[in-house]
């Protein structure tokens, strides 16, 4: 499936090669240090007291009992926050500690430091908080219609945004509509939130080792809350055990620093799994109405939509998630006319923010269900209706923005249709009962199991939007043939540490690359999110390497009397294309250090106007998914048998890494389709554990078949698009479409529950 015009005989360790992770051996041997593994002499443990109520007024906090617990060294509340009392990525509306009102179950109220985790637990138990329990706002529609009193001084609506484009009077002739819902998904990274804070002597500063997605943004928010200058707060990336969006917001960072500064001792904090479910933001639950108007031949004429994103108690990135959702309402299809209304609102549910796919997962679930309805309404195959509407480079989005990115939507669909279907019939040739829905012993009668096939296609924006000056920084030094690369890019498992080395080797012609510590001693890299680091930090490393290479070429040119413009890198040599001169890079960089820093900025974007018009996004990537499922319609059980995908990646810089991103992304999409949901009842969380929040295991995960479309992206520094999010975006609707195909029911909500299948 890959474009064979691209070079395939790449050198080991260089761009295009499936280079192995530099941290791989440490990770398989257990010697890689995750943030939760970090400790220090004289270290204390920190822990957090959290609200048991979704909405309550705090009448009194009495911490005196905590001080009586043996081993307790600090007890802090809002009164101990020296700087700004609130934080947040976009709006600073979330208190470091609640002092007057608690707005979600799990909101921090106090923190303690003690010499043993169990002493912390007892100290938290000994803190007395008196509440006046209030009726929580849990229905987001009541925030939209204004029928609920504001639960926060900033009101119950984070953002409302419309998109109005083209002819608003178009109706039909074919009309399909539906209302769709998505539950709250948790990122469920394995490495729980953890940090180690080490105070400077005299308490004038602090060093925080933390698992995060964006060191510099964390530092900005932490420093503000500590009342310190940014440079007094130094952040070092602690080993990150997965992220998926949940580490973009502050969780324990400020608390850990406060406890360390208060005790003048190093402090470790580590969340439990239960606490992690409450202590980070989640994927927004969303309710979407969509109505599509089309011609009899299936071509879209107008899309109408209404989105309500439940942002929970605090803003986090809700306003950006909203814009991502509504601006992707048309999907990867041509559509000239649109009427979209969107709200992101505040409730007393758990706060929501970033998760892989960031608003587009929600939009895609709705528009893909609609495309299947449209196919039925006009009597077309689900693929044909998508092919007829497929977006191309140069088409306009409903925001008026022209899609300048490579947009091989038709090619994705055609190549997906040609992917092999599962070779095994229902139940498998070997009749292994593990192959049946629900596994061995669950499915009553194999003869009842029905197989279904579903399709979905997606468009996902890459990088940040709406005027944000998004950039990443890298510093590269070259001496004696060794390149040292420094960046603040959070390695969360995605493999940027592998890619950075590949870039340096390719551009500089070196074999030996040293990666410096990832910390705030270099400029910001921006967040490891929005499928942006290959493009942004890849661009920064590439840019810094090119500057260094230029300096090296100048030196070679001077020493050998040749034109620097004639010099290129071949293998590990500097080669003059005019004279044939060849100099090893180790020789060309002997006894000197070239040291360059480069900031890569993507092109500017714009805010949306009041009609939702504007060039708000940077670039786009596309993906197509086909799911095959076996369903037991009597017991409501689903076995996802296979997910096939073809993805628009620009250029495969590391095919093995891409496979990992695609398979892992599909796992999270399958999870949302059939099992993953944080269940809240009146604001109370019912399943904050791995026993009750179901994640795909080895047995749940289908076979994955992958095709890559490599059409290098002209805008991208390395021709490569980000690959992390698209696998999650359209795999969910493909699985649900397959279940619909199997049983003939509408299934308008994810995750699809057994009761939806049996009684829906």
């Amino acid at each position: 499936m890959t474009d064979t015009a691209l070079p395939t005989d790449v050198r080991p360790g260089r761009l295009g090669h499936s280079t192995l992770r530099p941290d791989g051996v440490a990770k398989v041997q257990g010697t890689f240090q995750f943030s939760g593994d970090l400790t220090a002499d004289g270290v204390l443990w920190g822990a957090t007291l959290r609200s048991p109520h979704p909405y309550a007024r705090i009448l009194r906090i009495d911490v005196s009992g905590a001080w009586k617990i043996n081993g307790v060294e600090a007890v802090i509340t809002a009164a101990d926050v020296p700087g700004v009392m609130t934080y947040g990525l976009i709006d600073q509306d979330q208190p470091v500690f609640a002092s007057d009102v608690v707005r979600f179950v799990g909101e921090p109220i106090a923190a303690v430091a003690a010499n043993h985790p169990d002493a912390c637990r007892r100290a938290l138990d000994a803190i007395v908080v008196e509440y006046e329990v209030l009726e929580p706002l849990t229905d987001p529609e009541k925030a939209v219609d204004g029928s609920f009193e504001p639960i926060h001084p900033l009101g119950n609506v984070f953002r409302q945004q419309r998109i109005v484009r083209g002819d608003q009077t178009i109706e039909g002739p074919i009309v399909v509509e539906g209302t769709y819902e998505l539950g709250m998904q948790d990122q469920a990274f394995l490495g729980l939130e953890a940090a180690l804070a080490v105070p400077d002597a005299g308490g004038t500063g602090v060093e925080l080792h933390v698992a995060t997605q964006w060191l510099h943004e964390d530092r900005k928010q932490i420093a503000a809350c500590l009342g310190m200058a940014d440079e007094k707060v130094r952040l070092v990336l602690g080993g990150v055990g997965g992220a998926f969006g949940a580490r973009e917001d502050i969780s324990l960072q400020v608390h850990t620093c406060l406890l360390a500064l208060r005790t003048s001792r190093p402090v470790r904090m580590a969340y439990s799994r239960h606490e992690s479910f409450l202590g980070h933001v989640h994927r927004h639950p969303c309710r979407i109405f969509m109505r599509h108007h089309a011609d009899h031949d299936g071509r879209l004429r107008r899309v109408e939509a209404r989105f309500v994103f439940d942002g929970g108690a605090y803003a986090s990135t809700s306003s950006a998630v909203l814009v991502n959702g509504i601006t992707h309402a048309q999907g990867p299809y041509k559509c000239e006319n649109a009427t979209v209304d969107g709200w992101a609102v505040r409730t007393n549910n758990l706060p929501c923010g970033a998760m892989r796919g960031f608003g587009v997962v929600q939009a895609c679930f709705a528009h893909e269900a609609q495309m299947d309805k449209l196919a039925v309404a006009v009597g077309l195959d689900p693929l044909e209706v998508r092919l007829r509407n497929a977006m191309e480079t140069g088409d306009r989005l409903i925001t008026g923005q022209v899609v300048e990115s490579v947009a091989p939507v038709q090619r994705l669909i055609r190549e997906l249709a040609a992917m092999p279907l599962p070779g095994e019939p229902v139940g498998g040739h070997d009749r292994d009962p593990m192959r049946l829905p629900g596994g061995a012993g669950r499915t009553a009668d194999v003869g009842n199991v029905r197989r279904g096939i579903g399709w979905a296609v997606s468009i996902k924006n890459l990088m940040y939007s709406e005027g944000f000056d998004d950039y990443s920084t890298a510093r590269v030094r070259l001496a004696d043939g060794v390149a040292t690369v420094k960046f603040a890019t959070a390695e969360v498992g995605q493999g940027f540490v592998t890619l950075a080395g590949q870039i340096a080797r390719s551009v500089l012609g070196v074999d030996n690359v040293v990666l410096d510590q990832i910390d705030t001693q270099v400029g910001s890299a921006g967040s490891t999110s929005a499928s942006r680091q290959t493009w942004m930090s890849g661009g920064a490393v590439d840019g810094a390497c090119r500057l260094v290479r230029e300096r090296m070429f100048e030196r070679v040119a001077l020493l050998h009397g040749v034109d620097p413009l004639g010099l290129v890198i071949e293998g590990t040599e500097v080669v003059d294309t005019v004279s044939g001169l060849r100099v090893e890079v180790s020789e060309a960089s002997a006894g000197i250090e070239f040291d360059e820093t480069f900031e890569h900025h993507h092109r500017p974007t714009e805010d949306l106007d009041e009609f939702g018009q504007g060039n708000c996004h940077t670039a786009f990537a596309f993906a197509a998914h086909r799911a095959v499922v076996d369903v037991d319609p009597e017991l409501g059980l689903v076995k996802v048998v296979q997910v096939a995908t073809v993805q628009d990646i620009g250029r495969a810089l590391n095919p093995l890494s891409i496979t990992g991103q695609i398979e892992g992304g599909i796992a999270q999409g399958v999870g949302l389709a059939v099992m993953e949901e944080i269940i809240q009842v009146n604001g109370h969380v019912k399943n904050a554990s791995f026993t009750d929040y179901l994640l795909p295991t080895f047995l749940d995960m289908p076979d994955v078949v992958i095709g890559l479309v490599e059409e290098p992206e002209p805008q991208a520094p390395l021709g490569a698009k980000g690959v992390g999010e698209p696998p999650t975006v359209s795999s969910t609707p493909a699985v649900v479409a397959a279940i619909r195909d199997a049983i003939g029911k509408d299934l308008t909500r994810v995750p699809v529950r057994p009761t939806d299948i049996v009684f829906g």
Partner: protein
Amino acid sequence: MTEPGNLIYTLHVNGQSSDVRDAWIGESLLYVLRERLGLMGSKGACEQGECGSCSVLVDGELVCSCLVLAAGAVGQQITTIEGVAPAGAPSDVQQAFVDAGAVQCGFCTPGLIMATHSLLERSPEPTEYEIREELSGNICRCTGYGRIIEAVQRVAVARRGAQ
């Protein structure tokens, strides 16, 4: 935390005897391995035996160390990820995980390495479904499991070829 009920006991970990002093009796094997013996390779991610990140061998049996009381493991032979192979000289399973791309964030990896060694010990040539069933107590959130299955199969093939 020195309080009544605390005690001294000896654990046999990776072929060595280690005294655990002043420990609270309620500490899990995972906590004692990590915080008292400094063996940070075993990871805690759920504290209730659902994710397998803390997997170790106790008298050759694969267990979740978060569910075992450390004081209850006295007199038994405990093997952790640190005892699988010398640092810098990975076992065949460990190397296969690296080579097959089975590692992303790596947090689940030590537990999966323990589970895979245990599986291949008991069943040298597992079918794909056997691999899925046997490793289903270990959750990975990054990889979608495909490269891990590939790694296990590579080891099985290589070991067969070596015989």
